[in-house]
């Protein structure tokens, strides 16, 4: 809907004629740019490869947005996707480590308490909670990345780019 006025906070180049420019920061490798002196150009990003979108009336007339141009517009995906990687690798390490400790404990009980069943049970009982925790955490981590996609997005957001 068209309005015949602009907000008081809207930008106008006129503003810089009455207000001094702020002092630029000390940022290494960055060059401050100047306002004004319009060349009235359109960068290639907003021209290249848009012909097909222009011809698609559905896209052009619908909401004023064109098809996303992946060649010209770079997206940076950030978020919780790394959690999925952490769960996969961390989970497999914990499960492998937990299994190795189980085998280790069984070997230890075999080696040190071959003839003593009580000592063997004691070793296994003392180690059981630690091993159990490691294995359960590992399995939960692995399970997280194997959930059905819709459930997974609750924990890990979308794992593929849009």
């Amino acid at each position, binding site marked *: *809907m*068209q*309005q*015949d*006025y*602009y*907000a008081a*906070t*809207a*930008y*106008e*180049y*006129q*503003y*810089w004629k009455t*207000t001094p420019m*702020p*002092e*630029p*920061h000390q*940022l290494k*490798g*960055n*060059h*401050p*740019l100047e*306002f*004004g002196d*319009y*060349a*009235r*150009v*359109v*960068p*290639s*990003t*907003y*021209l*290249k490869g*848009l*012909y097909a*979108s*222009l*011809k698609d009336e559905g896209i*052009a*007339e619908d909401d*004023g*947005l*064109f098809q996303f141009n992946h*060649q*010209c*517009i*770079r*997206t*940076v995906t950030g*978020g*919780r996707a790394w959690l999925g990687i952490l769960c996969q690798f961390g989970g497999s390490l914990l499960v492998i480590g937990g299994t190795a400790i189980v085998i280790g404990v069984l070997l230890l009980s075999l080696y040190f308490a071959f003839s003593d069943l009580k000592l063997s049970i004691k070793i296994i009982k003392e180690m059981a909670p630690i091993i159990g925790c490691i294995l359960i955490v590992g399995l939960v981590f692995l399970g997280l990345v194997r959930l059905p996609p819709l459930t997974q997005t609750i924990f890990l*957001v979308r794992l593929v780019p849009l």
Partner: protein
Amino acid sequence: MITFWQYSWLSGRLKSKKSVNFMEFIPYLQPLVSPTPTSTGCNIIFVHKDDKSLQFSSVGLANFTSIADGLAWWDFIQCYMDVAEPLPNAPTLEVCRHLDPTTAKHDVAIGRDPRYWRDMSEQEYEAAEQAMAEKVARAFH
């Protein structure tokens, strides 16, 4: 106005919204360099004059292959933000030119075809694209 939307990293829900005036940002050109001359281009970053943590940039809006293209984008953004100036003549903005009062007046004054970009043939579009690329190269050589 530039609005920053902050989301919770864990739940993905909106935490806060902050609007800051466009005039409060200082624009910088950030040339991209690499040890081998295989990558070219630049970023335009906007840093708030008082708070360096308030930043936004051209990343996600444009991908420049040259510094001239980056400067053209800065020119484009200024014309876009300046309410005293008509919107830039870009195909993406053509469908909403009539909604902006300054642009609507300007278009009537110069007699601009409201379907200038949309009625072009592919050859005409490519020629216009090429002409604009040459204009950008001339303006920011």
